[in-house]
């Protein structure tokens, strides 16, 4: 690991001032960044610790919740308001990582964690995300757990977060030091700049995540498919909320994880569902409409089946 300086910011203003130092990075819980520093993938000269700036969860005037960037994953999952009003978020958090990691990991850090692609994490191999222009060995190499949606010839990696998938379904708003933007616009598809995971600029600090009120999110859940029963990244995951009236879908929120470079909001599926009866038939049509745009790699076509079945199952369980 390259030697680095460390500073702890008391508030956002101090964090931003500190972050003007060359090669500075913000540090949350460090559960991913520190690993990547050990691997030589990240080599910051200065770590600005922002984990303690804001760890509050507060009601918003509009009736939602504002989650400070430093709120720990375990605290967010356990919050009674989150559990009652946004169960999909609590569940997504609890199905991610391990208890020890959730105790450290912060809300903003979770959003900004990087892909766990084998090639990205190994500095002895090419990777367009880590070393732009060096190539993507995953295209022809090991990619069974990689993207089926939205990938580019430059990068086929997936975003690893469970929490972000739930937030994508909940239309969360990300507050940064200089703007507010929908969470759906925070993460990017790789296109020809896979080195950029998000639209954030250098030195831009996530200060909070805002959950708008969504009454029907009380009927929401997070389903995660993985090889082992715990402590594994998703093969495919789904955050889903259903608004039902007399057996008819009034509205729906669906987001897939483990399938793309960003949390994949399944808007085409949502459109199909609106106004339709809450039946397995509708759910299947919605899933297939969304997945019609999937482009599997050589070895990950199975994910399409898994995703389709997971959508149908999860919606059936909610209905």
């Amino acid at each position: 690991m390259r030697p680095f300086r460390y500073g702890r910011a008391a508030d956002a203003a101090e964090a931003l001032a500190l972050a003007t130092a060359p090669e500075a990075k913000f540090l949350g819980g460090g559960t991913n960044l520190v690993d990547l520093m050990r691997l030589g993938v990240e080599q910051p000269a200065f770590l600005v610790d922002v984990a303690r700036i804001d760890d509050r969860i507060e009601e918003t005037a509009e009736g939602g919740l504002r989650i400070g960037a430093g709120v720990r994953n375990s605290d967010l999952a356990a919050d009674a308001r989150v559990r009652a009003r946004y169960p999909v978020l609590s569940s997504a958090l609890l199905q991610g990582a391990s208890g020890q990691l959730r105790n450290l990991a912060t809300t903003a850090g979770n959003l900004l964690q990087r892909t766990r692609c084998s090639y990205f994490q190994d500095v002895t191999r090419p990777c367009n995300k880590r070393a732009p222009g060096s190539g993507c060995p995953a295209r022809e190499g090991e990619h069974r757990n990689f993207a089926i949606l939205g990938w580019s010839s430059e990068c086929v990696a997936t975003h690893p977060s469970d929490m972000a998938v739930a937030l994508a379904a909940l239309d969360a708003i990300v507050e940064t030091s200089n703007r507010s933007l929908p969470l759906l616009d925070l993460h990017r598809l790789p296109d020809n700049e896979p080195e950029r995971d998000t639209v954030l600029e250098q030195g831009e600090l996530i200060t909070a995540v805002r959950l708008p009120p969504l009454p029907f999110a009380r009927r929401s859940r997070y389903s995660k498919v993985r090889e082992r029963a715990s402590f594994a990244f998703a093969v495919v995951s789904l955050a889903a909320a259903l608004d039902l009236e007399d057996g008819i879908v009034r509205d729906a929120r669906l987001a897939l994880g483990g399938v793309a470079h960003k949390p994949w909001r399944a808007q085409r599926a949502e459109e199909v569902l609106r106004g339709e009866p809450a039946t397995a038939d509708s759910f299947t049509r919605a899933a297939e409409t969304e997945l019609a745009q999937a482009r599997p790699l050589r070895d990950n076509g199975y994910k399409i089946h898994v995703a389709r079945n997971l959508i149908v199952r999860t919606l059936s369980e909610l209905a």
Partner: protein
Amino acid sequence: MTVVSRSLGVALDRIEGREKATGEARYANEHLHEDVAHAAVVQSTIAKGTIRSVDASAALAVPGVLTVLSCANAPRLQAHDEELALLQSHRVSYRGQIVAAVVAETIEVARQAQRLVQIEYEQEPHDVELRADHPRLYRPERVNPSYETDTEQGAPDGALTAAPFSVDVTYETPSFHNNPMEPHAATAVWDGGDTLTVYDSTQGSAPARQTIARVLGIDPECVRVVAPHVGGGFGSKGDVRPPALLAAMAAQVVGRPVACSLTRQQMFDVTGYRTPMIQRVRLGARSDGRLTAIVHDVVEQTSTLEEFAEQTAVVTRMMYASPNRRTTHRLVRLDVPTPSWMRAPGECPGMYALEAALDELAIALELDPIELRIRNEPDVDPETGHPFSSRSLVACLREGAARFRWADRDPTPGARRDGRWLVGTGVAASTYPARMRPSEALARREPGGRFLIQVAAADIGTGARTALTQIAADTLEVEPERVRLEIGDSAYGTAPVAGGSAGTASWGTAVHLACRRLLDSDETEARISSEDTVEKREPYSRHAFGAQFVEVRVDTETGEIRVPRILGVFAAGTIVNPKTARSQFIGGMTMGLGMALLEEGILDPHFGDVVNHDLAQYHVPVYADIEEIDAVWIDEHDPHLNPMGSKGIGEIGIVGTAAAVTNAVHHATGIRFRRLPIRLDQVVEAWHGSE
């Protein structure tokens, strides 16, 4: 007269449990703190070729770096085994091979500078893929450690052709990697320039001393290897591994103690692994289920540096009765690291294939798989003709069947559904040789009616320290509290590695003999070797046996496989300590579950190495994967083993488990998966095709 209760068979708590739980137990890099420098290894980034140049200037410029060792300047070694000829050659024989080591004031500086060592290579095309039709397959002289490569009895080909029922099936397994909690690590200190102490994470301090001395070209009398606590090994610490030698070399160069440890990622390359395998099993049977032919042909890999030939089909020579039988092993030398021991080398992969094939035969015969095994019980060891010292396989199968409610099982594959889950059960037999090796031990009277026992045993988390204390206490007829057992030090004499499930039998016999000698003499100290006792053993075939029963649930929507129930029934002679024994059985079965469903070294042929080299990507089972698991054993009194009447238990748990799981998956789904691990993508593709 004081009545002393027997210690053998008592569930004594692990003696060093408190020490370990409170962090007092010292591991290989924790013994010395003053003046210790740290070494980090640099690995090759090509799979085959030559080192053209090593430029260490950038690394040396980092403050705190003491030296960089490479083929350009490393002390000369006298290694005959090329995996231990560290930094001795310009040749690169696999990706990840150690090509340099950075020695620095701290581990952090060493690892920082490690990436700054610039190495230029002359790269050559590599060949890293095992194939059954590889043109360079060859027949090794022997298989590990010294078994015959091929055997043939009767006329298996004719018998297969004539058999009314037969199966001809091929199973493939990937590389499997040992991942003990404590990485391979060592701290070396030279005293006065010519005597060396190595605190090593090793499964055998005495053999390690011999190897280290030989490779360094010094007298074994000048080397001491110390390993009181070892955080797991599974076989990967049975040989001397690079950290011990690099620490010794570096300590010599920088003139102070040096600690060297591997990262988790490096362990995948330089600590051995179980070779990928392609196993073809052919079975012929009469309509009553009696086997008429068994043919087991194994294809596996080794490196270009050294030959390691896993004895995969050896178990097939003794397991079941059959008048006609052939077993073969073929290897190919690839540009890969040298495979090595991993829990139950030979028996574990061999029994996966044999026991899965037997399940396939049972289905072809429409015969219960337990009954099929019972009908093929041999009277004597089919290979040697020796009587079994004891053989309780049938008892294990019957006991397990009763406990698992096997009689209620509908044999029809793919017929049970519970909601979205397909449910199935499977069984497999298990076995492992009951070996014993010579060892020395010392027993000494101490004041206050206490005793000191010294034996160069290794406790790699197995409970050996506790079991040996019980054996000593029993022989001495005192309470275990009166016995102080010292292990893990080559100064205590010769002793075998913790391997081959032979630790307790080997060290325990020596401890027993030393204690007996002490009791029979007026001396304060008795030092013995068990060599004569081991040599004089009568010609029996000695094996532990067992059976695993597994229930699986397969998600029809996602292909996820979960395992709600695992039961192992074992017969392993006297169980010295039921508490630590249960952990061994359960641990072995858990590892077998990982082999069946999760573990897989994923080779990228372009680079030539395993890409998923960490525990976030190479999955082993976690607690949530284990629901109901139990291990029980049946009473077995075998007078032909050793003074304790015990058989080894460290490995038998993993043997058979993967077959039981895959047999259960077949029973659940009706699909026979013949490639491990059965990941959910395989299941989904079997149902839907690969899109």
